[in-house]
């Protein structure tokens, strides 16, 4: 076989156990210089000529995601079946090549940025909704289905797929599962994991497995669905998902409350959650966030306040739902809300949620770059966390607006900066590190919904502790003994926190 003579000249992975999972994967330069043609030919045989991309232009544009990171893969594949993916896995395993699964590349932690010289396995062409089963209230989908398209399709039948990452119009189910994506509705409805009834996945060595099913209850063996959801492509490639659906609530409504002290807003959140009412969302915007949004598209946010809360409720009984919303507004007033009111009509609600969605782009326009964080803390620590972030911002002379899903304690402090300014970037690095440390200190965690990827991997030990991280490594090594699946993600590199790199 032609490949064998190519392989002979290559240094095989040493199997050294470093701090990361065993890395036996070949270096980019080796592969690229010696055997691209032969490998490409074999991959063409597997996925078909039209599903292989190799030009410089192609390799450039599959080298990024929604973060700052940029890399260059060896080759890009657009497989159409699980069997093709299994064959690619087997080849990669044989050749010790890295694989980076990718859906739409809209992630915010670098999870789908390929390690240099890896095979990008893009599931964009596996984009069919295979079944909407109304009796069992599940949808069976391929990983390339855009989340918003699935929502529209099931809503046309009165059903409801609740996870709503802000990227729902452009992100795909495969990526949502890999990162265990959340969204504003998670407070009431939970995250992507809560809707994964079954998965079909290709293991690193090429076995195609099915875990779970359409049933509601299932306690047979380890909960592998949960293990693969949020695994960031480090354990295999997801090739099909069966997702739970709910019935779409008939009514929804929105209210807002402005506070002159963000501490009061945080206290109101805790009080509301203690009251027994379950809102769909409680979203927080601080003053800088509101100012940025108003600069982009003025809709009259209370920029003279320190913070604003945005509440959503839903239900099938309009009067009961509105009574809940009135109760929420009244609790907000009890906590010194300056102005608290229920949106009077659909347009008013729509404008408020449009403002919420405008946050990210609005912040992006304020300064050339932004580093979006995604810490998650116990609700009772909201005040402490906000204070810590503000203190960090002041100490490093940085603009760090805070917004996020206050109801579930998932905050997005965004560090605004100009990466071309080396001194400022150095301060950003320290501030980011301090925010992670503060979150962990307060009993929280690094990421609520964006994942670890490249961005937060150096903090894993800080968050998990030595033993838990070691357990995760053992799991990784057991499932992926040759370390071919998305190497360089999630597990820290040597060097600890000093190796934290924003590139």
């Amino acid at each position, binding site marked *: 076989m032609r490949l064998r003579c190519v392989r002979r000249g290559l240094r095989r992975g040493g199997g050294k156990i470093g701090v990361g999972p065993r890395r036996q994967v070949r270096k980019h330069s080796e592969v*690229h210089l010696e055997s691209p043609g032969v490998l490409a030919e074999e991959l063409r045989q597997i996925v078909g000529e039209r599903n292989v*991309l190799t*030009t*410089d*232009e*192609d390799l*450039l*544009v*599959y080298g*990024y*995601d*929604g*973060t700052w990171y940029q890399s*260059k893969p060896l080759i890009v594949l*657009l497989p159409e079946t699980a069997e093709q993916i299994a064959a690619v896995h087997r080849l990669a395993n044989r050749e010790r090549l890295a694989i980076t699964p990718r859906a*739409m*590349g*809209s992630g915010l932690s670098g999870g789908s940025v390929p390690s240099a010289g890896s095979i990008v396995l*893009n599931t*964009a*062409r596996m*984009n069919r909704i295979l079944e909407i089963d109304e009796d069992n209230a599940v949808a069976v989908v391929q990983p*390339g289905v*855009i989340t918003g*398209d699935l929502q529209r399709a099931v809503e046309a039948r009165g059903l409801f797929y609740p996870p709503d990452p802000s*990227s729902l*119009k*452009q*992100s795909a189910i495969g990526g949502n599962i890999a990162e265990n994506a959340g969204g504003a509705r998670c407070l009431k409805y939970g995250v992507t994991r809560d809707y994964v009834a079954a998965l079909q996945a290709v293991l690193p060595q090429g076995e195609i497995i099915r875990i779970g099913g359409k049933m509601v209850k299932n306690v047979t063996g380890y909960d592998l669905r949960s293990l693969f959801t949020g695994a960031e492509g480090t354990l295999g490639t997801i090739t099909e998902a069966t997702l739970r659906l709910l019935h779409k609530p008939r009514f929804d409504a929105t209210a807002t409350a402005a506070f002159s002290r963000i501490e009061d807003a945080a206290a109101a959140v805790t009080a509301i959650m203690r009251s027994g009412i379950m809102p769909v969302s409680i979203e927080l915007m601080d003053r800088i966030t509101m100012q940025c949004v108003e600069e982009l598209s003025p809709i009259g946010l209370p920029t003279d306040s320190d913070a604003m809360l945005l509440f959503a409720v839903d239900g099938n009984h309009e009067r009961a739902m509105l009574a809940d919303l009135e109760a929420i507004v009244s609790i907000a007033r009890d906590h010194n809300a300056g102005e608290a009111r229920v949106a009077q009509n659909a347009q008013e609600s729509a404008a408020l949620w449009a403002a919420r*969605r*405008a946050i*990210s*782009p609005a912040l*992006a*326009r304020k300064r*050339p770059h*932004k580093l979006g964080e995604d810490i998650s803390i116990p609700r009772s620590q909201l005040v402490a966390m906000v204070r810590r972030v503000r203190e960090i911002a002041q100490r490093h002379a940085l603009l760090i607006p805070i917004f996020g899903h206050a109801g579930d304690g998932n905050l997005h402090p965004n560090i605004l900066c100009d990466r071309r300014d080396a001194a400022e970037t150095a301060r950003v690095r320290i501030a980011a590190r301090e925010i992670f440390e503060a979150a962990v200190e307060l009993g929280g965690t690094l990421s609520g919904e964006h994942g670890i990827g490249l961005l937060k991997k150096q903090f894993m030990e800080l968050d998990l502790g030595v033993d838990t991280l070691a357990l995760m490594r053992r799991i990784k090594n057991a499932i992926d003994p040759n370390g071919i699946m998305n190497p360089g993600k999630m597990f820290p590199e040597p060097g600890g926190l000093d190796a934290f790199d924003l590139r």
Partner: protein
Amino acid sequence: MTSLTTKKQGFTGSDIPPSSVYDQCVRCGLCLPTCPTYVETLVETSSPRGRIALIKAVSEGHLDLTSPGFMHQMEECLDCRACEAVCPSGVEYGRLLEPARTQIERATKSRRPRHMRLARWFSLRVLFGNLGVMRLVASLLRFYQRSVLQRSVRESGLLRTFGLEKLEALTPRISPRFFTPRNQRHPSVAPERKLTVFLHAGCVMHVAFAETNAATLRVLQRCGCDVLIPAGQGCCGAIAVHAGDMDFGRTLARRNIIAMEESGADVYVVNAAGCGSALKEYGKLFADDPQWAARAATFSSRVCDVLELVDKIGLAPGLGAINAAVTYQEPCHLVHAQRISEAPRRLLARIPGMLLREMNESSLCCGSAGIYNVTQPEMAERLQERKIRNILDAQPHIVATANPGCALQMIAGLAKIGRRIHVRHVIDLLDESYSAYMPASGVLPSNAASISG
């Protein structure tokens, strides 16, 4: 990176894609599902985010301006601006693409065979640069279309031999009479005179869609406009700018700016979405020209699509019934570039008897996109077929649109499968509705019977 080892040919001279524009892209990917070439290929390289990354790479010396992959992507883009309309970061994609094409055009001009250069020079500069020449060519074409020549040429297989079959099918049917600007002045016929408007007669419009121009004129008069058709006007320059000839685009633009300034009209009205979008962007086209920047910006602020204007000033009473189902195909340069989407639908809904049936993907490009049919025939055909499928699913008698290119693309697409669904400009339908009005009786037989073919 291997690509850094050799010196790459980058952007030079004037019309360089500005870093201030591409640096705004945060790579969120929201543009991907709206991009016609992305949804057809599902390849990132054929997406707006990918193309912006490629333009940035050329700017930063990582990629060669004349690499085949880069040139292909700059050509494959339809310049439909769907990405621009949804971009949360406000990246003005057109301001990257058009200079990039201009750069490629300048860098590769000398490499092309002489007959290709000659053809490009004649079609872009002579034909679109001079409406007299266009009328002459149109007259010859009309003779060809009306004589036995067309049928015998078609039957001879000559077209196929020269690869002109598709082009011939897309060539517009030349109007029996041209709509030539000769400084005409048509007063308002409404009791109240509201505005004086400058009517843009267009280049292709005035020889191939003269009836639509006449309909536009009549509707404007009915709605209270004094309509001027100054002779100094010409092509808007969109074809030149999209083809990477921004210099000539500016030459054409100056003519229209001067004609508008001399006319004293309040509003510059246009009925072709592609032209309207180009006219509204004169301000940006001259942004770096201190002598023309202010004049161009003032001009652009006065440009109005005819549907936008009529929607704003209000339709005059007297609309008659057209009993037919209509679906509305949104021209990219109306919905994305000019962000006009509701006005045409509101106007169609005003026509008695007309039933508006929405098609899927109404704002996804039909593949016409100026000279795209010629430069990217395969992708143009895929998008045309996709559009026709969506039209058929809506089961209309009429497809309404607001741009000549889209109309031609859909007429050709429907003809290919032998379906008799009429393709009309919204303004034609309004004009027809006015002429169908019978004040005495309420309900009347309209000419819809002939439409529902």
